[in-house]
């Protein structure tokens, strides 16, 4: 995090060194926990679906560019916008500071002598800034550089960002580069008097860093002021809105209202469309057998039914089954499922010599990029089986829960393995997605979201192998397959019908009366796997 890597007092160089000064503007008292961090995905209550029934993203992220002179209050404006938006989920404040160029040794020496001009547009890696922003805007992951102000250098590590609905890109040069400007949906320039900016700057540097006024003025006159006059101020011509650097509540209110309006136009109700495929909508009794339709239309891989498998499912479905038996048999089932699913990996011929000296032709796995991703929360259920079969692969997780009010799937947490976070690797990776919440494809809303996340990361559709215990053939699986025909779904059994029902409610946030929740329940089903194990 940039905040942790700030410049010590002796390395005072332009905008970059002021980062932490802006964190606690005295005019806006707030608790530290509410302080929106930069270069972090800020989440208030989970991310609702960002794609339509056909699996395609409905819209790009909303991108706001905020420019303005050094100490003009850009960060303040950005954070006020975040606070005004309130419950809007997943915002990233992307700071220009991350994109300072990698310095060679000569530049590094200059930088340490305070002789490198960090306030010039050339100091910033604009093409990289633009490509990271473009990826994030398009809903892809991005690994942004990390810049250390202490070392005056870009570090080897990168920071993984994914999944923002709103991106605020801020920095003094945020509006100077045409490639960046093309990405903004809204361009804001924070206008502030030069003398006010200088006054703020002197006040902060003296008070918080114990520096003398001469040094500050020298710095200001040598780099900051020329940069502002030559590059920053002229870029205000590109702004949609000029916001005053102080007393700007009305302007921020207008901006927030505008953003909310834009987002509302983009929003939709996905779950309804998935959960009730038109074909099944009028048969709540569900005695008609849609299995034949299912097998023809939806290319599921249902495991060969054996007496043992049937027996295991009987035990798992039995409401009187004890918890340890439930765990034991889900474990057995998941091992079988994963073994079965592995046949979708590529194999190539390989010749080996046996201990008695005979050469024989066999096969070997033809990929080194395999990983598993669990949909939480019933994480353990398929994971043990997976580990038993492939013991050394990375396993990530996604926390997807349905919202207690709308019933929409909400993405709460993304923890993906290394292979997927980096796009060039993700493109060659095989992903076993173990659907664990609720380890069954019912409405398929969680499954749908999970697949979309992987595709956003660049994983190829035909390299996603979805392993699940139970599929409801009246549920969303056909919609899922229509949207993502390449994804292979491996399951142990298929249930006949979905039934509308009410899930027992829990008193809590967003549900003060403890009211039951409207859900779709699989029949005969096996209950909530997470609850049982």
């Amino acid at each position: 995090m940039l905040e942790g890597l700030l410049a010590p007092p002796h390395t005072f160089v332009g905008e970059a060194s002021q980062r932490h000064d802006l964190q606690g503007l005295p005019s806006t008292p707030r608790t530290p926990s509410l302080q929106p961090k930069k270069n972090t995905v800020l989440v208030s209550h989970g991310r609702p679906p960002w794609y339509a029934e056909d699996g395609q993203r409905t819209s790009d992220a909303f991108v706001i560019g905020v420019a303005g002179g050094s100490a003009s209050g850009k960060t303040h404006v950005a954070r006020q916008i975040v606070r005004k938006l309130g419950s809007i989920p997943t915002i990233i404040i992307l700071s220009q500071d991350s994109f300072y160029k990698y310095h060679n040794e000569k530049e590094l020496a200059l930088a340490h002598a305070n002789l490198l001009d960090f306030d010039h547009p050339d100091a910033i890696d604009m093409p990289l800034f633009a490509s990271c922003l473009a990826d994030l805007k398009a809903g892809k992951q991005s690994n942004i550089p990390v810049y250390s102000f202490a070392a005056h250098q870009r570090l080897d590590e990168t920071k993984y960002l994914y999944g923002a609905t709103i991106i605020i890109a801020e920095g003094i040069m945020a509006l100077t580069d045409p490639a960046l400007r093309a990405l903004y949906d809204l361009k804001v320039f924070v206008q502030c008097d030069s003398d006010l900016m200088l006054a703020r700057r002197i006040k902060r540097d003296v008070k918080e860093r114990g520096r003398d006024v001469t040094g500050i003025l020298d710095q200001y006159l040598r780099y900051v002021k020329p940069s502002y006059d030559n590059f920053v101020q002229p870029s205000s011509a590109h702004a949609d809105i000029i916001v005053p650097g102080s007393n700007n509540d009305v302007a921020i209110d207008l901006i927030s209202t505008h953003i909310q309006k834009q987002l509302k136009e983009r929003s939709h109700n996905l779950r309804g469309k998935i959960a009730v495929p038109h074909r099944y909508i009028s048969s709540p009794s569900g005695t008609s057998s849609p299995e034949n339709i299912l097998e023809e239309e939806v290319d599921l891989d249902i495991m060969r039914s054996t007496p043992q498998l049937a027996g295991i499912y009987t035990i798992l479905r039995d409401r009187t089954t004890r918890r340890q038996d439930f765990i034991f048999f889900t474990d057995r089932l998941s091992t079988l499922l994963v073994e079965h699913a592995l046949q979708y990996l590529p194999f190539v011929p390989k010749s080996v010599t046996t201990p008695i000296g005979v050469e024989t032709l066999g096969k070997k796995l033809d990929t080194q990029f395999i990983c598993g991703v669990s949909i939480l929360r019933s994480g353990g259920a398929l994971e043990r089986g997976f580990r038993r079969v492939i013991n050394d692969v990375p396993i990530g997780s996604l926390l997807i829960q349905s919202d207690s009010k709308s019933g929409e799937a909400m993405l709460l947490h993304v923890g993906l393995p290394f292979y997927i976070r980096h796009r060039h690797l993700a493109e060659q990776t095989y992903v076993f997605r173990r659907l664990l919440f609720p380890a069954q494809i019912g409405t398929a809303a969680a499954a749908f979201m999970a697949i979309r996340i992987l595709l956003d990361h660049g994983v190829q559709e035909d390299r996603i192998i979805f392993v699940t215990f139970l599929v409801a053939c009246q549920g969303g699986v056909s919609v899922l397959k229509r949207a993502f025909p390449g994804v292979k779904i491996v399951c142990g059994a298929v249930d006949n019908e979905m039934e509308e029902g009410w899930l027992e409610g829990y008193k809590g946030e967003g549900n003060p009366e403890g009211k039951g929740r409207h859900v779709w329940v699989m029949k005969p089903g096996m209950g909530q796997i997470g609850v049982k194990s």
Partner: protein
Amino acid sequence: MAAPSSNPALAPPQPALSVNSNPAHLDPLPPSVFTLPQTAQLEALYTIIRNKDTSRGDFLFYSDRIIRLLVEEGLNHLPVVARTVETPTGATYNGVGFEGKICGVSILRAGEAMEAGLREVCRSVRIGKILIQRDEDTTLPKLFYSKFPPDIASRYVLLLDPMLATGGSAMKAVEVLMEHGVPEERIIFINLIAAPEGLTTFCTRFPSLKVITGWIDQGLNEKAYIIPGLGDFGERRYCT
């Protein structure tokens, strides 16, 4: 693709396996022999354990995986009865319940390696042991030691031996079991790699005894080793 298991018509036991799809080394397969589905995935597992350069850790891990699949397959030949349960959603489900007591019997020493795999799938299963070695004088397999659960005659027996070469010791083990009152048709022989010669001899002698084997190899060499085989299973497993 098989019928989904939610289908109530499933209840009676059914022939568990598709026929051997790798008949290259034994065609036709005796009707009592069942193999695992011969997938590239399974072949890759065998390739690893056949390779003389495979480390012991990998040998253990991958042979255990095959053993588990074999045991799961073997259990499919046990009877089940129709059983109706109520699901947590309140619906009725017509499923099946496991029926009949079982017991594992391993042929020492290599067969012991398969006990863990059996236990992983059947908790608290009873396990008996048989030690059979070649008699120096007669060159015939001779029983040195056996220990079984007292009620073995009333159980289904899963006989465990990873390698079936000439079939001599396996046939001797079956004889011993039958002497203890276990009928031939209640024995299921679980085996990792079989040579066609031994398999044919064994199945001719015990036609109603079911054999679950993972892979049927080319044949035997002059020293009665399975070709290509994987060497001595016990030696690789226990490093002795």
